[in-house]
């Protein structure tokens, strides 16, 4: 993956995505599967909404005490025989891991799925040092072969169809018989499993992410369905966990509470197949497991988000529900967002991490329908946070004239919630209409600069222009 963002070209990316028939076919799977599964599993658990409130409150508590929890967590990791490394930036984080690998003479690294490793550009950094990084999650493996970035935070190859995978395996696995049957997804999975087994066993270092870091015990927790994150950490001699600083939870009980909303929100499972708690290196009576255990704590802009209007974004547990339910994501897929984190969470997080000048278009990638917020397990007010970015972008005069007019209109609606709801309802219906019959959009407002919002009927009473002028005057008086 490239750490170089193409987010500034969001509109161009989006236009290309809309014209890509294969992509549009693949995105149909997101719309149909994720939404129905999450709804069904949430319905089955009467406590689900209360668990979401609890999860939100817990995350807020952690963020408010993050420095103290980080110190407590570090103490426990060291007590259990592990090492903690701190990285201010992406470059620093990659360098720490590359140095670790070099000093242990590592030639290959097996990687469990980790979004923060994408964020820090780890594979490229290892590659530059002559060390092969092998992605072991099936989806990540497929896109690594294709030289692509993930298009979804939990389903990285969701933009691909079965034929794409077959073509890639035939292109890369040239040592296998040419006439083998790969017409079924089962045969593709079996081939990947066999190829990757050898790579796990040969790896010197295993790198995984962490869903949670438990301060009480110094434990890192990963959640997977395949078991690749486990093979990545129990077979190589060294286990490196790379995680951003906000992943801390106080206790095992707190982790349990978050686990109950994570899988349900992400894949609609009651629980993911493997929830693994790892603490330190192997013990005296262990016959397998890593001999060294390292944690790299990555800040990369997060400490600046604390105390700002974007702090709530740090509650995120990376479930992907917001993108699964986002009509813009459904229409353009993850790559259009141009960096590591797509969908609504990406639209808020990306400008925070790489700068609004590089990602300024992303917060516009919204119909403000509010579905993301309504499914977010930690109740992040994503539309509100996107609005903050739009307002900042507006203030900085970074937006082209058309968006500025759009934002003015948006600010107008923001102060009239009922009207706003009515109009966004219209927008959604308009989008659905645009997609009629084909399950995809023929033309989407965002691709041409969000015309839909500006083409809506003028609000009752005064004309929009009059309202807009009055609004401007009021603002001038206030400032």
């Amino acid at each position, binding site marked *: 993956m490239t750490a170089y963002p193409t987010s500034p070209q969001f509109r161009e990316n989006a236009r290309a995505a809309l014209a890509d028939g294969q992509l549009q076919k693949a995105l149909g799977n997101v719309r149909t599967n994720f939404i129905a599964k999450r709804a069904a599993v949430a319905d089955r658990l009467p406590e689900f909404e209360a668990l979401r409130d*609890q999860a939100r409150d817990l995350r807020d508590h952690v963020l408010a*005490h*993050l*420095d103290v929890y980080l110190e407590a967590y570090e103490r426990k990791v060291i007590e259990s025989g592990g090492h903690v490394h701190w990285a201010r930036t992406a470059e620093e984080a990659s360098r720490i891991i590359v140095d670790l690998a070099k000093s242990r003479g590592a030639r290959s690294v097996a990687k469990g799925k980790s979004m923060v490793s994408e964020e820090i550009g780890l594979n490229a950094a290892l590659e530059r040092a002559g060390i092969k990084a092998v992605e072991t999650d099936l989806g990540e493996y497929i896109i690594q072969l294709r030289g692509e970035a993930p298009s979804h935070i939990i389903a990285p190859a969701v933009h691909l*169809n079965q034929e794409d995978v077959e073509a890639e395996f035939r292109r890369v696995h040239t040592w296998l018989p040419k006439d083998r049957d790969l017409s079924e997804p089962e045969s593709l999975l079996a081939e990947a499993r066999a190829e990757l087994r050898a790579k796990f066993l040969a790896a010197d270092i295993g790198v995984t992410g962490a869903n949670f870091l438990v301060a009480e015990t110094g434990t890192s927790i990963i959640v997977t369905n395949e*078991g690749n994150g486990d093979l990545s950490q*129990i077979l190589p001699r060294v286990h490196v966990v790379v995680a951003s600083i906000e992943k801390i939870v106080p206790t095992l009980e707190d982790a349990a509470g978050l686990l109950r909303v994570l899988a349900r929100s992400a894949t609609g499972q009651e629980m*993911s*197949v493997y929830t693994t708690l790892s603490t330190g290196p192997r013990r005296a009576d262990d016959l397998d497991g890593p001999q060294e255990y390292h944690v790299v704590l990555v800040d990369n802009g997060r*400490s600046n988000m604390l105390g700002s209007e974007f702090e709530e974004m740090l509650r995120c547990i990376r479930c992907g529900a917001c993108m699964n339910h986002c009509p813009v994501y459904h229409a353009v897929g993850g790559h259009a967002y141009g960096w590591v984190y797509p969908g609504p969470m990406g639209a808020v997080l990306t400008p925070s991490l790489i700068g609004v000048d590089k990602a300024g278009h992303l917060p516009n990638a919204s119909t403000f329908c509010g579905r993301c917020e309504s499914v977010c397990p930690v109740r992040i007010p994503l539309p509100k946070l996107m609005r903050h970015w739009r307002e900042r972008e507006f203030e900085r005069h970074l937006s082209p004239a058309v968006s500025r007019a759009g934002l003015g209109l948006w600010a107008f609606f923001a102060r009239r919630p009922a009207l706003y709801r009515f109009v966004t309802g219209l927008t959604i219906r308009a989008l659905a209409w645009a997609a009629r019959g084909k399950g995809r959009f023929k033309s989407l407002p965002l691709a041409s600069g969000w015309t839909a919002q500006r083409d809506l009927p003028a609000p009752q009473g005064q004309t929009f222009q009059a309202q807009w002028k009055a609004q401007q005057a009021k603002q001038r008086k206030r400032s």
Partner: protein
Amino acid sequence: MSAREDILSNVRRSLGVSGIDAPRRASVEARLAAHARGIAPQRGQGDAAARLKMFVEQAQAVATSIAHAADVNEAPAQIAEFLRAHNLPAHLRMGDDARLRNLAWGAASLEISYGPSAGDDLNSVSFAEAGVAETGTLALVSGAHNPTTLNFLPDNHIVILRASDIEADYEAVWARLRERYGAGIMPRTVNLVTGPSRSADIEQKLLLGAHGPRRLHVVIVGD
């Protein structure tokens, strides 16, 4: 300044707090020490019979297969039956677990080898620390009695679980760990396993046996 100091002081600056703020420290210490339970689903909370029923229901829903044995001495015969039914060789790999060692494997015509897996074993057997009724989840703990590779490398993972070890929720598993290892101390690996390995990375189609076991078979002992 070190990266550590930089990050911590930046966190404090952003939060508008100082590092020596006693009430904040006290509130964190209190929360860690109390490790209070949060909301746990009612559905796991019944009596032993209800927990067993819920465990089986949840486990089967995620493609775990279940067999019952009245007594742990019947487990080898149950396992032999499972292997025969799937045309699997009568060979099992397992850890050095006192609860497994003395079972009459030979009488069931099963050949046993001990130790971690290097990837060439088809079948492994573990003794579960506990089960969790709420989601049909197994808790397995690393150590010489159950090297973690046994949970992942073999194609068929067979787990013996005492019905009396089926707990309501994950929190009850944490309580057991604290009792055994001490507060704040964990074994190297705790695996919560809910069904056989799977992937939906190709067109969202659910396929079993991604990197871990293709089959997860649980023999529940007692009732």
